[in-house]
């Protein structure tokens, strides 16, 4: 078994990825066919060196939100530089496995990791992996996502206050959400602590689809889940949207009421997440600046803007400072707002 451990650590450290010409199996890599030598905007003498491939680690499975964004955006970056670009999915361990690979990669600007504060920071605070997530260097943030409070339509919840009243009356006692110890569990804690939804037991599910099924089957009355994962069931009417959690409301359901509009305290530091790209610690500043510039150009390109409009996927550009700030906020505000030890215990019970 020792042999296992050695293999694993060295595998993480061994992070120089070879250039591989991707042949066109759908979805494995962003296409390299469009590599015309339009490197006028970049300093081709130094970074990025046109021969070296850029690897983008996505700590989620294929086809998820973060994966789709990474492939779209780096597809646009690919038109700007000569370098082959590979998007690689390293799912698992609540995003910490991919983050760990990215963290221990060479800080030469050729390995980028995609993860989203505050979700991954919460995983890091609960799991305590053998590296300091805060040391990642933010490159930029390209979109945000929101969380929503949804319910079984049969119960006809009017708004958050109605939820609170009926939990107080003892009509309900269960709160649903994603896996315990994760971001929706933190939100559920805060919804009880700050807003007064007195749920008794938190019931975790493996994702948005099983949550929607459990609501429809009335296994749980209400649940917190990511907005994008629940668009289908809401439109089909199998679940009801009670309120969006962030003060700015939803990303897809822009006009949906927010709990903050109802007068409840805002908890934006956990009720929305920012999809960001990161470099490992000690990456040179000029590499960060160059990549940020490339990503800004890609995000602002017609190609990405049109994709955003066609699909309804939110897109924005926020710089390195913003990315670093949301990471810092997560590590500062969450431990002071929620008792992490209590959360961990509740999750492990």
């Amino acid at each position, binding site marked *: 078994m020792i042999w296992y451990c050695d293999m694993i650590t060295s595998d993480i450290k061994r992070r120089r990825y070879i250039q591989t010409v991707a042949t066109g199996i759908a979805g494995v890599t962003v296409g390299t066919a469009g590599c015309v030598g339009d490197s006028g905007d970049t300093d081709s003498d130094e970074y990025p060196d046109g021969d070296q491939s850029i690897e983008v680690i996505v700590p989620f499975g294929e086809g998820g939100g973060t994966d789709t964004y990474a492939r779209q955006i780096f597809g646009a970056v690919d038109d700007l530089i000569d370098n082959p670009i590979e998007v690689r999915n390293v799912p698992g361990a609540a995003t910490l496995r991919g983050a760990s690979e990215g963290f221990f990669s060479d800080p030469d600007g050729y390995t980028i990791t995609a993860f989203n504060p505050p979700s991954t920071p919460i995983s890091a605070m609960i799991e305590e992996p053998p590296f300091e997530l805060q040391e990642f260097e933010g490159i930029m943030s390209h979109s945000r996502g929101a969380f929503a409070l949804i319910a079984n339509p049969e119960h006809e919840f009017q708004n958050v206050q109605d939820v609170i009243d009926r939990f107080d009356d003892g009509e309900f006692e269960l709160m649903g959400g994603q896996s315990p110890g994760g971001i929706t569990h933190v939100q559920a804690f805060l919804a009880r602590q700050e807003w007064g939804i007195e749920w008794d037991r938190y019931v975790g599910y493996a994702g948005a689809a099983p949550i929607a099924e459990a609501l429809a089957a009335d296994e749980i009355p209400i649940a917190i889940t990511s907005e994008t994962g629940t668009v289908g069931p809401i439109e089909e009417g199998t679940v009801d949207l009670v309120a969006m959690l962030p003060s700015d409301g939803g990303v897809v359901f822009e006009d949906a009421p927010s709990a903050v509009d109802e007068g409840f305290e805002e908890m934006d530091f956990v009720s929305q997440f920012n999809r960001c790209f990161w470099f490992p610690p000690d990456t040179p500043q000029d590499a960060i600046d160059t990549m940020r510039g490339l990503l800004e150009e890609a995000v602002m390109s017609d190609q990405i803007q049109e994709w955003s409009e066609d699909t309804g996927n939110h897109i924005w550009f926020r710089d390195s400072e913003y990315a670093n700030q949301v990471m810092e906020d997560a590590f500062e505000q969450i431990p002071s707002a929620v008792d992490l030890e209590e959360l961990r215990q509740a999750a*492990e019970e």
Partner: protein
Amino acid sequence: MSIKHTVQEWIGSEQILLLIFLTISTYMFIESYTFTGSYIFPRYSALVMMLFAIMMLGNHLLPESIRRITTSSGGLESYATESVDKSTEQVESPIEDDPVEEEQSVEPNMKNAWITIGLMSGYVVFSYLFGMMWMTPLFVVAYTYQFDQPIKVIVVATVIATMFAYLFTTTLVLPLDEGILWEGPRWF
């Protein structure tokens, strides 16, 4: 019957297999006491597995009535086998499900299996060190050579296997052309 003979009879490969199962389950049972939650399933599964492994190790010491339970069979299969009065020896190597065969009286030729395991362990370790793409043809050559294949067959098998390794490396974008000791050639 000498003691040595008795011991040899008792410590067969099945007993070693059971000892491995016993070691793993004992470790997992003890380790489960370091968990704060989520220990119920692994702890009690490990405990039951330990007991069953011990029971099997001492199977021939058990009274007949208990031994019947350890060897009693389920419904459908016995229906199928009992009812076919034709010789069931013809029914060989069923792969789709489990082997139907009874406890094998004649020990199969384990030498070949262990030669293969030896070659395979070299394949895995050297692949990890130097890259699986490069070790694949070497493994196939070593294996086919070991089992006395004609040159033509060795070449064909090696070419086919190498082609698979190349396809995996390129189409699935896997770093199989490098190992921890060798970064691989840069011409890919």
